[in-house]
């Protein structure tokens, strides 16, 4: 499966959040690793785009776009 990093979804994130997001630093809810989105592992090829923690591979964010609507699940971003 194709594997990129967060730089590759800068455009998608900017479309959804309205601002540059790849420099945003997130904390992984699974392992606590702290890293900019640019460093995360991105799988763009599925029904949605899956953004995973590079340290533990836990899911950080899932983005699905269908019929002009974006569903953003930030399930794995820690406090």
């Amino acid at each position, binding site marked *: 499966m194709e594997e990129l990093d967060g730089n590759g979804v800068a*455009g998608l994130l900017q479309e959804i959040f309205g601002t540059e997001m*790849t*420099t945003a630093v997130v904390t992984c809810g699974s392992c606590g690793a702290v890293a900019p989105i640019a460093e995360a592992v991105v799988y763009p090829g599925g029904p949605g785009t899956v953004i995973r923690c590079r340290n533990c591979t836990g899911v950080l964010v899932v983005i699905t776009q269908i019929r002009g609507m974006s569903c953003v699940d930030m399930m794995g971003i820690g406090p």
Partner: protein
Amino acid sequence: MRTIELNVPSWPGHRAGQHLDVKLTAEDGYSAERSYSIASAAGEPVAITVERLDDGEVSPYLTEELGVGDELEVRGPVGGYFVWEAADGGPLLLVGGGSGIVPLRSILRQRGLSGSDAPVRLLYSARARSELIYRDEIARHRDGVEVIYTLTREQPADGWTGYTRRVDPALLAETAWPAGKHPLAFVCGPTSFVETVAGGLVALGYEPGRVKTERFGGTGGR
């Protein structure tokens, strides 16, 4: 490999290392979108360099069918992480694998245009001599730019002065700026290449926050 210059009337300007996204839509509504590193410096016309991937959905069109005067749907500039501006200084260590050279070319051009005197070492890995892109242009950078080539699948018989080996921690130790110079590194290439280089630089004492990485899925440069 093809470099395409785009005329985007509403282009707001970009920074070296940023991307743009190209979206192709078929007559039946199916669409595919890919993100490409911008190959030109800030202030220059927008250009992308596209490597044709045999199983690609976008690159075969861009490299073989797109002609002068055709229109494309683009979004950009995007990205803010793998970006260099003159104020960021150096010394700069640029490490590219295969078409990972593209954003590094943008940074090199930016350095030249801005009159920056940040010293640069560029370590550029490709499979074969014929796959090195921008070679003449890179050779024209002189003051303060050192270029180190390595080929991973070819050992040219004649006149080759570069390395013929993969980039690994030993080669990095030999060629990269010493960590004590507080270098700023940009590493772009296939995922495994980037992991090897970024890990190797941190092991040499580079600050993780000053090793910027960008990975793409292909296998160029290995």
